[in-house]
């Protein structure tokens, strides 16, 4: 440990930091800045300052509990050094046996959501029924209304749990689709090259 643990004194922001600690312990999901501000009846700026104190106190190497900025909010989690011990006692059931089809499906929902099952099937080229059901059961995706046409299909979106499990601060943290994957023009050229080669 580089520095001794900083004792929280009677400074007003320190007092706010203690209240935030308590809220994060009680909460079952990440709390946003707005939620913290509403609960503490304080302003966002002071909340951010207080969160800085909490982050300093609960960081890797200093505490068994670490403050995480995930899923658009703040939450407490176990430090990485405790992972082995945690694994002996608990598992992360959400990601157990997550198939390739499920990962591809959740990627489509994350990028294109809200999206319906037929749309997912159209992109993947195979039915997505089982993958969608599995993801709903794990709580990684959830229903988000129906398509506006008469008798429209159910649409799905990713949940806050998805962001937390994948360690994303928000969906904005996903890499841009332009930056990954194949270039359409290049594929088209290759297809034409193959076609010409077979014709000759």
């Amino acid at each position, binding site marked *: 440990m580089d520095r001794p643990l900083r004792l929280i004194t009677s400074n007003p922001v320190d007092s706010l930091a203690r209240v935030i600690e308590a809220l994060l312990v009680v909460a079952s999901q990440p709390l946003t800045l707005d939620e913290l501000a509403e609960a503490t009846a304080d302003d966002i700026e002071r909340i951010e300052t207080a969160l800085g104190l909490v982050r300093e106190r609960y960081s890797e190497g200093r505490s068994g509990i670490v403050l995480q900025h995930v899923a658009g909010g703040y939450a407490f989690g176990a430090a990485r050094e405790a992972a082995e011990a945690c694994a002996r006692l608990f598992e992360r059931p959400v990601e157990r046996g997550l198939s390739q089809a499920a990962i591809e499906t959740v990627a489509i929902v994350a990028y294109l959501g809200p999206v319906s099952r037929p749309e997912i099937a159209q992109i993947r080229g195979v039915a997505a029924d089982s993958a969608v059901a599995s993801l709903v059961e794990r709580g990684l995706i959830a229903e988000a209304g129906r398509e506006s046409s008469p008798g429209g299909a159910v649409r799905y979106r990713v949940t806050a749990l998805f962001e937390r499990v994948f360690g994303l601060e928000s969906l904005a943290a996903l890499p841009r*689709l332009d930056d*990954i994957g194949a270039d359409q023009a290049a594929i088209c050229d290759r297809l034409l090259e193959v076609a010409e080669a077979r014709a000759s």
Partner: protein
Amino acid sequence: MASAVRDLELDLDAFEGPFDLLLTLLLKDAIQPSEIDMAAIVVAFVERLAERDELDLDACGEFLVLIAALLELKARHLFPDEEAELSELEPEEAAEELARRLAEYRRMKSAAIWLREQLEGQRELYFRLGPAPLAPNPERRLAPQEPLRLVEAMRGLAVEPPPVSLSHMALRFPPVSQFVERFRALLTRRRRFDFDTEMQGLSRVEQAVAFLALLELRKEGEIVISQAAPFAPIRISRADEPVSDSDDERMLQWIARSA
């Protein structure tokens, strides 16, 4: 169309509404048959039949014909004549369309790989998964209200209730002062007296009041109270009257007789 088929309400993943609307949308190509779960429609129909007491053979027959047609439609859609479809396109157009679909899928596949790596990186992070948030309190629906009945009820409440009778709680025993005077008078005539003897014929409440009168006189220093043993008769004498030996002897005899 038989009502059991026409009124069949469906709640499928790809469609929600009556069966006849689904048929209309399928025939107009507004919904792809491949998106519809036919088994779920059959289950919904069978459940509908089970709810009715009698078997509607007409409806069953009609449903069989319709569902068979839908299944054929779905099968044809699932295995389209791809060669005929592609032949309608120029080679460049076909390549472009294929490339577009492939590129979209490969982008999503790459995104999936990125997510898989991200997940691997999070494998060591454990956090608490709490219960779902508390459900909001359901809105309480009031039964239809009649204002006149409410007025009647309020009017009934506004009437002053009859005064409560306390007659049964009236004090039915004489005042302590009455016994104080009685004992004073007795001690002016006699030097001492036996409390139990004097109390004969009185009620328990009157005896209690009389005893309070004795305590009052003792407090004032007017009398001396003596009792030879627990539960022996209580003897009262004037405070200025010394108790002699002969008195003690008489008291012992008296106690012996009482015992």
